[in-house]
């Protein structure tokens, strides 16, 4: 079993290597993001599709697939035969969470390793003692004299993902502006890909996040439901809206009050008074491309016990797969938290997307993405205890 030292290289025995990034988090709290970059001879990506990460699990050429991600291991399945001739390198990197001076470096991790499966596995135990890096290129697979090799790199940047991504020619927006305005579609290809990286995506592997108060309160929390009926186009939300999705929530307040906020039945809630949750209007016209917004008054967070966010297909066949629907939660000074409505059950018109709970004053967001046939069935599954009768939006 070849054990590589930093800087060392070894030939790969296969065109379809499985690359495992194994991280013992040690004292690092939060998600460690693992990403891969498909690079040309100049060491840069040729565009957005060359980056593989939580938000884009396969490279445009199909050569790199983020196969699975757990708390301790991210697995990439590669098909090197699929790489165009311009591709010279595929780099694998990891980034620790956080910002500012308190951000931990890789020295706080228990262990970091890159491993390539096979009859004779290749292992690179990344030296992290004394590391000042918060983002690190762990290794790279590269072409050499017609064959592919792996190099142990173990080098990175103190400033996180931004300088790392920039070293690969990716332009990073400094602060993703919440709420995100839909950028105007352009016909010309973008000169450089701009990717917002400070986003948290809740997935099956990472179903929970705890948001902490900034400056003693949460401020205004904005929750967006957006969808598209057209094939997904990266970078903007487009397409006609033949399917109408509604955003709503069930809530339970500290004082025991339980009800819902939704367009159906004009239960729009209120921001300034109980329940401190307000739906900012239903868009069935298709004129607004931002979807629907629910606002939660973070200053009154302590009056709220829990919220169940749901999406509801009121009209049209519940073809969830075609909607590419996603809910994004924007809390001030926190990265946006995104949950995608995957694995939709086309027989059921309701999706419980996320549970937001007040845990000792903090905010825990848990991904649910469970499908139900209606309010009553969902209510019962979450033991909410409301009585439901059929209604109409007209």
């Amino acid at each position, binding site marked *: 079993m070849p054990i590589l*030292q*930093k800087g*060392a*290289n070894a030939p790969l025995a296969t065109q379809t290597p499985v690359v495992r990034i194994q991280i013992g988090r040690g004292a690092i709290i939060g998600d460690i993001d693992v990403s891969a970059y498909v690079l040309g001879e100049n060491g840069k990506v040729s565009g957005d599709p060359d980056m593989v990460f939580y938000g884009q699990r396969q490279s445009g050429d199909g050569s790199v697939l983020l196969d699975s991600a757990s708390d301790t291991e991210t697995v990439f399945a590669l098909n090197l035969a699929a790489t165009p001739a311009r591709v010279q390198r595929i780099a694998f990197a990891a980034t620790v969470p956080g910002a500012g001076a308190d951000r931990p470096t890789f020295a706080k991790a228990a262990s970091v390793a890159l491993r390539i499966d096979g009859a004779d596995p290749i292992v690179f135990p990344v030296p992290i003692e004394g590391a000042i*890096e918060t983002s690190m290129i762990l290794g790279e697979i590269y072409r050499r004299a017609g064959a592919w090799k792996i190099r142990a*790199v*173990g080098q990175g*940047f*103190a400033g996180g993902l931004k300088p790392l991504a920039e*070293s690969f020619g990716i332009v990073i927006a400094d602060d993703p502006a919440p709420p995100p305005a839909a950028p105007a579609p352009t016909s010309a290809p973008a000169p450089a890909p701009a990717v917002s990286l400070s986003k948290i995506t809740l997935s099956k592997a990472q179903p929970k996040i705890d948001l902490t108060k900034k400056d003693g309160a949460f401020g205004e929390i904005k929750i967006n439901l957006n969808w598209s009926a057209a094939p997904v186009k990266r970078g903007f939300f487009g397409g006609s809206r033949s399917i109408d999705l509604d955003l709503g929530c069930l809530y339970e307040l500290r004082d025991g009050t339980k009800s819902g906020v939704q367009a159906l039945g004009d239960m729009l809630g209120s921001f300034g008074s109980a329940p401190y949750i307000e739906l900012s209007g239903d868009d069935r016209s298709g004129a607004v491309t931002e979807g629907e917004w629910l606002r939660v008054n973070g200053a009154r967070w302590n009056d709220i016990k829990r919220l169940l966010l749901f999406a509801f297909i009121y009209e049209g066949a519940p073809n969830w797969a075609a909607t590419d629907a996603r809910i994004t939660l924007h809390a001030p000074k926190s990265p946006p938290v995104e949950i995608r409505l995957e694995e939709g059950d086309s027989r059921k018109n309701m999706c419980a997307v996320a549970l937001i709970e007040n845990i000792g004053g903090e905010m825990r967001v848990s991904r649910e993405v469970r499908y139900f046939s209606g309010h009553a069935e969902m209510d019962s599954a979450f033991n909410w205890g409301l009585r439901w009768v059929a209604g109409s939006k007209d």
Partner: protein
Amino acid sequence: MAISLQKGGNISLTKTDPNLQKVLLGLGWDPRATDGAEFDLDASVFLLTEAGKVRSEKDFIFYNQKKSSDGSVEHAGDNRSGAGEGDDETVKVNLPGVPADVAKIVITVTIHEAAARKQSFGQVGGAFIRLVNQDTNAEVVRYDLSEDYSTETAMVFGELYRNGAEWKFRAVGQGYAGGLAAMCQQFGVAAG
């Protein structure tokens, strides 16, 4: 038009540029641009006899001893980062001034504190050595070290050597572990 050599190749300097006397050896490299410990690569020169050893410590030209005792070989100084285009370090050799018992001039590059910084030539790209006629400013020969290096911490870039009455240059590109200390040991310099 300069001649470009492959690893192991050699040329006769006397035949290629009959007027060549004062040689400028330019060395370059590009360490991977990341944060953390800086790369400090150092060029060193060993003046060797037929036996492949130095006559004395005076034949070891490096950052702390920039000139040979006879003045024929001079190190132009240390570049601490390798940043920028072109030559990172240069060495001047006055070929007619090289003592007759020096049969070979070996040009090496080593990574400073490589072990402590966990650095190696696997992390360095774009390494080259080129030989320029100082009088005409013409590049005579160039060798790009395009080998796929790994954990080497010392590298012989090239060597000037006598072949009868003429001087030749060989593209070596051979790496070693152990850094500058290993180079010194190999060439008979007691360094500590």
